């Protein structure tokens, strides 16, 4: 769709445009395509290729989990030996209640290296999931980072960066 020399610039423009989201109207891609000076077909092809190449993880609705019944959640930090992370990954892949799982940098004063976000219809349900993961992996070294207050939660403002 664009010359290799200005690939980055063209890409940025497309990304910023797509990031603004899709209108709820009959032909929502038309507005975006016009803005980018292209056609709907070409734009849809670009989106498909961005998905195929891993730039876009998924294209679709972002739902507020608390509005669809998942009223409770807990961030859990785990201390998992490096060689057992694959095993841990397999356990959480099988659990729909786990939305995010990351291996992160750890420190001597904070040895937790794996983080999971767990959702449930109640606090007890969340704790039940933590217990199931802990039993499956036979690791009890974790800490529950329950939310006390939400100070900010918003979509990334690409224009503000």
């Amino acid at each position: 769709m664009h010359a290799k020399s200005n690939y980055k610039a063209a890409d940025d423009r497309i990304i910023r445009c797509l990031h603004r989201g899709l209108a709820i109207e009959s032909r929502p891609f038309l507005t975006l395509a016009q803005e980018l000076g292209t056609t709907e077909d070409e734009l849809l092809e670009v989106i498909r290729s961005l998905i195929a190449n891993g730039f876009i993880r998924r294209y679709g609705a972002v739902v507020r989990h608390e509005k669809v019944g998942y009223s409770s959640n807990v961030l859990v930090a785990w201390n998992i030996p490096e060689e057992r992370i694959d095993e841990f990954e397999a356990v959480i892949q099988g659990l729909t209640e786990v939305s995010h799982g990351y291996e992160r940098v750890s420190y001597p004063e904070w040895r937790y290296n794996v983080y999971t976000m767990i959702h449930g219809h109640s606090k007890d349900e969340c704790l039940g999931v933590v217990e199931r993961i802990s039993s499956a992996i036979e690791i009890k070294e974790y800490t529950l980072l329950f939310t006390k207050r939400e100070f900010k939660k918003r979509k990334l403002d690409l224009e503000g960066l």
Partner: protein
Amino acid sequence: MRTFDAIDSQLINLLQHDFPLAKEPYKELATRLDIPEDEILGRVRRLKTDGVIREIGPIFNLKMIGLASTLIALRVPEHAVDRAVQIINSYAGVTHNYEREGTYNIWFTLTASSEEGLAATLEEMKGKIHPLRWLVVPVKRVLKLKTNFTL
């Protein structure tokens, strides 16, 4: 929490997992659910107005599109929380910021347009906040990322 009828539930699932990349996506959803396109548009608009759907669009892999991001945990005394939050929230790159239970009482995420920019912003923030403890915990590996919920 509100309840959804069978069509809303199916619609919410399709919008998340199987959004049609087509010129007339809502018309395709209408065909799949066997209801008129106008009704689909009406239902999607209502779900958006009610805040059930935050948005329809791409979920980018931030690293792949050239951005740098990290999670930061810090400890500030109780009396300094409000001031710290004010400083943290003033940055456009902060998308999530929570008070949490435990040794580190504030946890936030910061995204920047480069690794250098990220490091510089973190230094600036730390200098303004003077936290008792400060922990930068970037991702080493994504183990799971599935932010869609099946109804």
